[in-house]
């Protein structure tokens, strides 16, 4: 029994390695950032960083769910943009109207995700190109809603969601935590969630084992839509407005992939956790923050960011040098 107990710890570590690495990376970079920030480790600085990072964290979680099934969602950023535009119409007015608005926005995101899922599962299309296509559709809808930037949001609510609780804890972090607890934890522990992992790891075997393959994929895509919608809602809280921004939609999609990889989620599917993806997102965002604390010529900043990103992802591959059986390269 003792042997099993020590084995448990080893296996737990093996499975959580990616997440731990992302967390470590984030803590290291954030420490570097805060310790060089003129204002230091103050609630304001943390709040600013967390407001910016949670947005990406939501999209990264969305991406993570899909990536676990060995799919990919190149429309995640556009769902965010669409929900932002929608929220800038709906999340205003009386508390009741605002509440209804939020529900409608979340449902819209869920709907986008479900559309992706349906097309990919029942149309049997390759996710990468199907979501390129749906992202054009979502962007078109966003443009219909907001041909020019504008709209508004219930500002009290928005402030509440982007402020600090008790003057210290950023509300956005609390919401992020809540979303992890309410969406990710049940999902990952449910039979459907396990099926999602199984599908990502070996779809055929999952089917042969009588797992709900289609339902798992569908749930992953649908929840991804929902999470992106939460991101879109947050964008609205953060900016008080809606904008059909093509470039920023695409940027979020690509960043979410980077975040997911930094977070130890395998793009081949079947491995990783949304918690890792969240840390990946936080770490990725901190790369941008580092620009404040180091005095770089403005024109060298993009290069600096690229190089830091490259270093961050290269750290993860140090292990390859220790591989003694070359076949392990191919897992």
């Amino acid at each position, binding site marked *: 029994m003792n042997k099993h107990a020590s084995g448990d710890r080893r296996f737990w570590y093996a499975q959580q390695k990616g997440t731990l690495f992302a967390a470590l990376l984030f803590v290291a970079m954030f420490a570097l950032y805060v310790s060089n920030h003129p204002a230091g480790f103050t609630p304001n600085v943390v709040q600013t960083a967390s407001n910016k990072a949670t947005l990406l964290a939501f999209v990264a979680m969305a991406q993570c769910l899909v990536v676990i099934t060995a799919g990919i969602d190149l429309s995640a950023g556009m769902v965010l943009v669409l929900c932002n535009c929608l929220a800038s119409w709906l999340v205003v007015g009386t508390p009741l109207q605002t509440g209804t608005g939020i529900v409608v926005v979340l449902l819209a995101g869920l709907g986008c995700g479900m559309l992706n899922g349906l097309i990919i599962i029942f149309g049997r299309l390759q996710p990468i190109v199907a979501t390129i296509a749906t992202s054009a559709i979502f962007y078109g809808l966003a443009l219909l809603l907001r041909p020019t930037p504008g709209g508004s949001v219930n500002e009290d609510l928005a402030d509440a969601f982007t402020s600090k609780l008790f003057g210290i804890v950023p509300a956005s972090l609390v919401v992020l935590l809540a979303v992890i607890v309410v969406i990710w934890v049940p999902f990952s522990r449910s039979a459907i969630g396990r099926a999602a992992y199984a599908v*990502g790891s070996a779809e055929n075997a999952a089917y042969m084992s*009588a797992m709900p393959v289609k339902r798992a994929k569908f749930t992953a895509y649908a929840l991804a839509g929902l999470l992106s919608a939460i991101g879109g809602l947050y964008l609205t809280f953060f900016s008080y407005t809606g904008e059909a921004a093509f470039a920023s939609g695409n940027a979020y999609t690509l960043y979410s992939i980077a975040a997911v990889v930094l977070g130890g989620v395998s793009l081949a599917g079947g491995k990783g956790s949304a918690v890792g993806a969240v840390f990946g997102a936080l770490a990725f965002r901190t790369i941008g923050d580092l620009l404040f604390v180091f005095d770089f010529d403005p024109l060298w900043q993009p290069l600096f960011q690229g190089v830091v990103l490259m270093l961050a992802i290269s750290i993860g591959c140090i292990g390859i040098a220790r591989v003694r059986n070359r076949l392990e390269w191919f897992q």
Partner: protein
Amino acid sequence: MTLPEPLFRMEGISKRYGGAVALKDADIAIRPGAIHAVLGENGAGKSTLIKIMAGVVAPDEGRMLLDGKEIAFASPAAANAAGIVCVFQELSLIPDLSVADNIVISNPPLKFGMIDRRRQRRIAEEALARAGASDIHPSALVKDLPLSRRQMVEIAKALARKPRLMILDEATSALTQSDVEKVFTMLKRLRAEGMALIYISHRMHEIAQLADECTVFRNGRSIESYPAGTKTDQQVVELMIGREYSNVFPPKPAHRGEVMPVLSCRDLSWGDRLSGITFDIRPGEIIGVGGLDGQGQRELLLALFGVLRDVKGEVVIDGRPVTLKSPRDAKSGGISMALIPEDRKTEGLMLPMTVRENLSIAALDRVSRNGVIDRAAERREIDDLFKLLAIKAATIDMPVAALSGGNQQKVVIAKWLMNRPRIILLNDPTRGIDVGTKQEIYLLLRKLADAGAAIIFYSTDYDELIGCCDRVLVMYDGSIIRQLEGAEINEHELIGAALNIAGDHAAQRIAP
């Protein structure tokens, strides 16, 4: 004694894949409390039959009756619900999930809608114990387990579903003798409990040991069903292959004179998995590697083939020490080594690619000039190999995935033969291969050896080691513990050495 009514019955089942007929008008009746063996050579349609039973594929024609009522399965889940559970030949485990996750996969225990990990753990431990594999840690990832352990997990997984009818499609093909014993004990217990069992295997002695009833398939038809023990092995084999059959193993040649070894290992070690491996092999020799599964036999082959890094010790080929850093080095020019890998699905074949492309992939240098493939030369080489190995494929431009398991295995062997290797490493090459084909492979190996190849042959099947090999190295815990030669190569010695039972021969230990 009256036989119980059949639990499950299939009548007039046919299945075509495109033009290929996999099953034609097949019948079978399965009774509870009995083990029903299904026999047939590669491509006879056995796997197809049970895939239909398990709801994986739908039959084109025919009907299925469960408890006398007609039934059809839309999916594996439906078959599961009806109590039919299958251990597939092509494993159906999820590599990235843990053993426990896999065992409860189709029906995990829930608490508040979430998976109850503690109970899952208990179920898994129980099932593993029932399958006689409690050495497997329930939290280990399946992908980290060797093939034989995976097969045990697969069996435990089937058991955890509490089936009424359990099907094992070559479920023991990668198991070692001791595992097989455990599985058999378990199967007999299940039979006594009244479960219906279908058992598919190419190992005749296993069938003799287990089966109550047998059905023989040939070319997609159910040829005959009979109670076990009413036919001799000879008769059964002839039923299966539809022709006469004699003596499995080719005769071993008399000892040759001293030739220079083509390959020598001096004190080869790798981490804690291999230590102090020393042996020689001469052209024309077939050396068997035996022992319990997982004693470093696979690592030894991989180390020789240049796959492992930081291998200590010396490999000498033709008298010259060499350092091999990749399979490419190993197969190239002067060395000309080949490795028939253990898992054909992940290491041997590119399943979706055509037979042609798979066959020439290891010998591209041979059929190309300046990187351009000479299709005519390629075709010629392939024709030769098809003849040599009698590969059954409609055309060489069909995907290898559409071949039956045995024919896939032949393709794996053939692709390396195209390179005319001088040193051939075989990692359990007859896994899942029917008797007829096995015999062809034994003949082939001997033929290659006679033509001057040196063959190192790891097998989990003692009969093979005994029948085929000139010498057998028995491994235990990463070292060669015994070397058997001549008459010493018998089941008694092999098992004794494998279990490292100190005996009269302890002094003969080769490894330090």
